[in-house]
């Protein structure tokens, strides 16, 4: 079934007439509210290129991801004019549990998907733009949801390796007759990588159970991950041009880390003729240590500028949501999330050994949210869904070390903030082939606890500075022919005060008003149900309104072309799923009036299923280009014999080299 058809079906669910339907809908996807929404089932996911679950998010129109930390650290995400850094603007849930880490020491909303084995992802729904009322904190540039499970019953063994000096072994089991959510999976993945400082090792374990209990669906899942990885960091363009370093080299002490995480989710769903209810409880434990050095020995000529960060957190939450399609249709829900964390940052030497402590704090963060939406059909072809979300954020932060100074008598700073986020969605389907979308709303991004230690500590609460984002979008999806689909979404996003956290100074900065105007457009060709060509264009003009300067780092033009085949029959017994993705990103503005180079690559994935065997071939960077994953302008000092320079130099992080990975899967 093609994604196009799935999208139409999804939209059709949203068009249920006010009269109750006798047909129950199980696990129905949430209806699209934007022409840029995409949904991928397992078959479609097999056509997406990528080395990890994180990279599946590239299916989101307009998203650019940068893996400057190698394979183990969270990616850096850029979407709709936002540099979300490591996820503070892109909210992702798995099985209803939030994956973004609140107040992670490395960055707010740290989004690390290394926890999730790729083979376990069953559906992925991506939604660029301001999200629905059921999405709260961090969903200002986009959101995504994932459901997990093993597609096939029985025992599955996958063994693979690649020219990138990596290997993979996955063991999976889904009992016969059991639902996809009942499974066991263990995975070892890692290797040396191509180039220096790219070694990584990931251990993943997952277990799930899915049962029908008295008309309710119960899904329970545990995911665990232990990853150790090196990070190649940055290289200067000058050193590359002079031949001092190779494109896939790394400066000494570039960094690495260890990431450990466990997530447990319990989900109870009940779907009836005219209503749907879901309860989700989740708990997560996190241990993260990172060391990095992006400037060499500029600020500390003797010992180096390394930094070592540690973060430990416990997260728990409860989420209740329901949809009713009776006389008064209502979508409503509530969520409580609690985070307790302990974090520190040290100055480290060139070998990554901690020297002196710069920052150390403990914090407790609570987010209580509730939402209400009323999807109304004043006319059969018109859906109007006004919605409102309210959140209350609370922080208790105690810093034992700040600015390198140990606090004699640490006080607990309290901060809180109420947030109101109205939303409005209009969907019009005047014909069977045309759908028009209008959405407007407000989203928010909470501040990291680390910046709230300026409270007076006497028990009085300070107000936590929340970034509020207002956005409006107009879009259309037009499918004039069975094999042709057109998508277009134009949006305008306004932030009255763009807040940034300056990690060096340990304080929030007020960037002033910003605006982002953009367009996502796509041409979807489906000559057959098994073949397709998606052409996507994303343009965005983001500006600081006071100075009228472009917003740095956010991509302004992104073009992607994806040729795919989904379970294309080959002969009588085999099927081919394949995807070829070509992408190109235009120059991005960099701070100081500089600009990055355009960049791009071509990746391929190919899967042949025949009976109990599958063969997967992935080709990264087919043309072998030295493409720039990230580009930055700042001063650094990597030659310890040279005087410290204060002149901004161009630094790059290398994109994935050309590599081929082959894996064989056997099922019994």
């Amino acid at each position, binding site marked *: 079934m093609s994604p196009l058809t799935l999208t139409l079906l999804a939209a059709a669910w949203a068009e249920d007439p006010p009269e109750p339907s006798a047909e129950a809908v199980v696990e129905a996807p949430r209806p699209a509210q934007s022409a840029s929404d995409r949904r991928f089932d397992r078959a479609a996911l097999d056509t997406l290129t990528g080395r990890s679950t994180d990279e599946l998010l590239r299916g989101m129109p307009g998203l650019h991801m940068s893996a400057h930390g190698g394979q183990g650290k969270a990616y850096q995400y850029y979407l709709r004019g936002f540099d979300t850094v490591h996820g503070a603007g892109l909210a992702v849930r798995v099985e209803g549990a939030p994956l973004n880490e609140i107040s992670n020491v490395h960055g707010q909303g740290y989004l690390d998907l290394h926890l999730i084995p790729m083979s376990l992802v069953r559906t992925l729904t991506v939604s660029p733009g301001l999200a629905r009322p059921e999405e709260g904190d961090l969903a200002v540039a986009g959101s995504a949801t994932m459901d997990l499970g093993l597609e096939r019953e029985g025992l599955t063994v996958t063994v693979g390796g690649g020219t990138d000096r990596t290997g993979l072994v996955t063991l999976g089991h889904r009992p016969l007759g059991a639902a996809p959510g009942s499974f066991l999976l263990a995975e070892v993945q890692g290797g040396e990588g191509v180039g220096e400082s790219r070694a990584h090792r990931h251990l993943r374990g997952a277990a799930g159970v899915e049962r029908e209990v008295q008309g309710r669906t119960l899904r329970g899942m545990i995911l665990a991950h232990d990853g150790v990885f090196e990070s190649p960091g940055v290289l200067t363009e000058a050193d590359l041009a002079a031949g001092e370093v190779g494109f896939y080299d790394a400066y000494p002490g570039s960094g690495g880390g260890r990431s450990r995480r466990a997530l447990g989710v319990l989900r109870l769903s009940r779907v009836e003729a005219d209503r749907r209810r879901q309860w989700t409880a989740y708990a997560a434990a996190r241990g993260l240590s990172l060391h990095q050095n992006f400037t060499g020995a500029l600020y500390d000529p003797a010992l180096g500028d390394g930094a070592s960060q540690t973060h430990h957190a416990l997260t728990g939450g409860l989420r209740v949501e329901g949809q009713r399609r009776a006389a008064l249709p209502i979508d409503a829900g509530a969520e409580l999330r609690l985070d307790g964390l302990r974090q520190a940052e040290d100055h480290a030497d060139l070998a990554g050994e901690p020297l002196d402590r710069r920052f150390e704090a403990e914090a407790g963060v609570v987010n209580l949210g509730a939402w209400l939406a009323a999807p109304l059909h004043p006319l059969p072809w018109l859906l109007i869904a006004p919605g409102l979300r309210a959140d209350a954020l609370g922080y208790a932060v105690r810093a034992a070390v700040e600015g390198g100074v140990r606090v004699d008598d640490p006080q607990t700073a309290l901060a809180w903030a109420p947030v109101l986020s109205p939303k409005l969605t209009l969907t019009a389907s005047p014909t069977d082939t045309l759908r028009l979308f209008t959405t407007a709303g407000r989203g928010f991004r909470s501040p990291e606890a680390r910046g709230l230690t300026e409270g007076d500590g006497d028990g009085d609460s300070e107000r936590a500075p929340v970034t509020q984002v207002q956005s409006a979008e107009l879009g259309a999806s037009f499918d004039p022919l069975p094999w042709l689909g057109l998508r277009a979404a134009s949006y305008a996003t306004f932030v009255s005060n763009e807040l940034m956290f300056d990690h060096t100074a340990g304080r929030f900065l007020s960037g002033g008003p910003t605006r982002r105007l953009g367009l996502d457009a796509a041409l979807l060709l489906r000559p057959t149900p098994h073949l397709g060509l998606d052409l996507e264009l994303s343009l965005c003009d983001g500006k600081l309104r006071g100075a009228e300067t472009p917003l740095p780092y956010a991509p302004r033009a992104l073009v992607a072309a994806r040729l795919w085949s989904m379970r294309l029959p080959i002969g009588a017994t085999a099927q081919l799923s394949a995807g070829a993705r070509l992408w190109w990103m235009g120059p991005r503005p960099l701070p100081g009036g500089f600009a990055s*180079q355009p960049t791009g690559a071509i990746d391929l994935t190919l899967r042949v299923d025949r009976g109990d065997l599958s063969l997967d071939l992935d080709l990264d960077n087919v043309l072998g280009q030295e493409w720039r994953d990230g580009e930055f302008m700042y001063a650094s000092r990597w030659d310890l014999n040279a005087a410290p320079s204060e002149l901004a130099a161009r630094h790059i992080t290398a994109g994935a080299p050309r590599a081929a990975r082959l894996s064989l899967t056997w099922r019994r």
Partner: protein
Amino acid sequence: MPRSSPFLCAMLLLGCAVDDRLALTVPVTALALDDATLRPAEGVSLTLTTAQITLADLRLEAPAAMSWRPRLLPVVYAHPGHDLAGGVAGELLGEWTLDLLGDDLVLGEALCYEGPLATARLSLLPTPALRLAGLANVDGVERPFSLTLSPDQEITGLPLEAELSAASPPGGLRLSVDLNHGLSFIDWRTSDTDADGTFTEADGATLNTALFGLTSTPTWRLTLE
């Protein structure tokens, strides 16, 4: 640094509307003195026999702005030691010993970025940084003088207002030293306090006045050709 393809730009109007600051190099020359005879004060004439200065690390600065939110006025921090100039827009790193009585010295090529300049700064290294010697004629009376100074500080705020463009790079940057100004704060009539037969920085307050003058911003001049 390559610009975007015009063809692609024609198709992707918004995406390519991003300017980049190109890099350029500017040759830097330190000028020797035209005349070994100085007249730093009324009734004082100096004939130099030694004039050596050790310089390091020339930096050209853009107009001051507050980080990524540019403000229109130059700013300094209201605290000694926190005076904030603009970001460094050009740099020539190195150490050079300049014989002011010899020939002009080519210091090298400064790597710069396009855009406005406002000020510059350079360092004097304590190796010693300044060695001046010769014969002083004060009110008709001659005596030898020798100044050996190690200020170990930066000369800051050298005026250098210009707009650099890679399309039309300047011919060069010239650094000159006005020793008449630099030595004008010294009281050349101070007696030979330590009675060593030579007027040196150890006599009276000469160390302070010599350092003050030789590190004074107007003593140093930068001009773009």
